């Protein structure tokens, strides 16, 4: 009973904190996958300083255009710029047709975003405004629209325009909500024509070095402000800022979960106290005997305290086993979630378990040590 309570407490701490940690690291890994040294320009000014891309793509006072991208390209410290236009369009080959997310960008997208090709080529480098009718498609798209034959070299109709397939993306799993297997990438101007828009969804900038990040970010804001009649109407976020924000959120989350789990540890502590009190009253005559053969109060206190601590440590170890078991099961169900309880959580769970053994064992132990030996020997309290 006591062991169970203690192990549930410790298991809860381990499982919950590792879930929190896992979620944090999952998000961190996702952003890491975005590519390094990345700066993202989003049209629209965010006054709140929030970070959710979905939240920020609301109103657009002034469009972000291709010429903005070209201006940013010329800034010092900028290695690469990849404009991004995103939409969804029907893609068809002959009679086969399906809806697919379409991304308009440039040849720079591959290194900036970290795309990997299975075969063929990526978008050709060159003038951003030139509208070459080529497309790079995801694995699934290739399989579905070109069943049983090679997609590269084949013709693909997206909306009312025709494209020649030049490359197929390797399967990289999901990259922040975009499944690279289900994606069609075309030159940015083609996408603009396709979706009949001049504005860009995002501008992805890669700095030369990590140290350039701040400088490039400030310069980008300045350059675009200049081009937009002095109005700072874009939001520029760096990967670092994004990461640290998510880090803070998830650390807070993990701590909250740990706090909740600690409450169960405290409950287990109260249970320890009850069990120990029962054990003291059951063993009253033994305490009397110990006193008769010369045990001091200190020795009797130490005896019962040791027992309480041993019980809680045993519970803690059982709980750790259960906690890791839960992690293992969850890890098998969601393999992409890196589930490892943080070291501090394991240490904390153990320390709290032992501490509650001491704290809640102390009262019963002292009660035992204060029993009157004559009454105790007779089995009375």
């Amino acid at each position, binding site marked *: 009973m006591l062991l169970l309570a203690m192990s549930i407490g410790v298991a809860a701490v381990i499982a919950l904190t590792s879930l929190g940690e896992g979620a944090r690291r999952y998000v961190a890994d996702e952003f890491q996958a975005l590519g390094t040294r990345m700066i993202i320009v989003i049209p629209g000014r965010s006054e709140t300083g929030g970070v959710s891309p979905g939240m920020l793509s609301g109103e657009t006072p002034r469009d972000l255009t291709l010429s903005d991208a070209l201006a940013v390209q010329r800034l010092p410290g900028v290695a690469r710029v990849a404009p991004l236009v995103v939409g969804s369009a029907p893609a068809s080959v002959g009679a086969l047709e399906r809806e697919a997310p379409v991304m308009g960008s440039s040849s720079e997208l591959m290194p900036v975003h970290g795309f990997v090709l299975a075969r063929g080529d990526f978008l050709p480098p060159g003038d951003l405004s030139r509208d070459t009718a080529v497309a790079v498609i995801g694995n699934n798209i290739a399989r579905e629209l070109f069943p049983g034959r090679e997609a590269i070299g084949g013709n693909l109709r997206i909306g009312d325009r025709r494209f020649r397939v030049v490359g197929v993306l390797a399967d990289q799993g999901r990259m922040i909500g975009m499944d690279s297997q289900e994606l069609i990438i075309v030159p940015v101007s083609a996408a603009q024509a396709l979706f009949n828009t001049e504005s860009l969804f995002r501008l992805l900038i890669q700095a030369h070095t990590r140290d350039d990040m701040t400088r490039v970010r400030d310069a980008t804001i300045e350059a675009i402000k200049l081009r937009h009649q002095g109005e700072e109407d874009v939001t520029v976020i760096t990967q670092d800022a994004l990461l640290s924000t998510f880090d803070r959120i998830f650390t807070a989350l993990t701590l909250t979960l740990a706090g909740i789990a600690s409450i169960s540890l405290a409950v287990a502590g109260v249970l320890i106290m009850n069990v120990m009190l029962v054990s003291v009253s059951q063993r009253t005559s033994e305490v009397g*005997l110990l006193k008769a053969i010369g045990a*001091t*109060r200190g020795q009797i206190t130490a005896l019962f305290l040791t027992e309480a601590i041993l019980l809680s440590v045993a519970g803690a170890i059982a709980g750790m086993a259960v906690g890791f078991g839960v992690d293992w099961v969850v890890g098998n169900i969601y393999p992409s979630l890196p589930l490892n309880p943080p070291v501090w959580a394991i240490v904390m769970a153990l320390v709290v378990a032992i501490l509650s053994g001491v704290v809640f064992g102390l009262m019963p132990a002292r009660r035992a040590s204060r029993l009157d030996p*004559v009454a105790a020997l007779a089995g009375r309290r």
Partner: protein
Amino acid sequence: MIDLQNICRHFQMGDQEVRALDQIDVHIESGEYVSIMGPSGSGKSTLLNVLGLLDRPTAGTYLLDGRETTSLDDEELAHTRARKIGFIFQSFHLIPRLTAFENVELPLVLAGVAPEVRRPRVQELLASLSLESRAKHRPNELSGGQRQRVAIARAMVMQPAVLLADEPTGNLDHISGAEVLAAIEGLNARGITLLVVTHDAEVAQRARRHIRMRDGKVVEDAT
């Protein structure tokens, strides 16, 4: 050895004051064999508890080995009990989770005696009480007589000067009782002071000195 002067022990039972011990004066020399008899409630068990330093007298002085004990604190009392006094109880009071060996070893463990000193001493004692084959058994695997002999070994392991026995044969059949009495009388023959509280006149007759109590007073003290 033991010198009780004007010892009183009063209990408060509701509004009534019970005089369990009423002005007891007893002097016991080292090596004596004393039986204490009396009806229930006569105060003989209280006397034994006071003698064993488990209970404090309300008034009077108790000199053990020439030392005043009524002013000692709990810690000192525990140490004195450990070193000078051995107890044997009617219901044995062995710890059921420990083997016979471990039960006997317990006082030495509490006194902080090193394991390599403990081991031979316990073994020797168990052998002297013909218990060497039962050393690894738990109390519930032993007969009543064996249990009481384990309790005797435990009482003796610290080599006390006084052995206090509270109805040592009360839970035993005639033969086991005789064995147990023979064992403690053997110890007395080797110099230990032996006090036996009993109801049983036959047991009491074996002692060399007989103290009879009634209503908290010594009514007879004969050799």
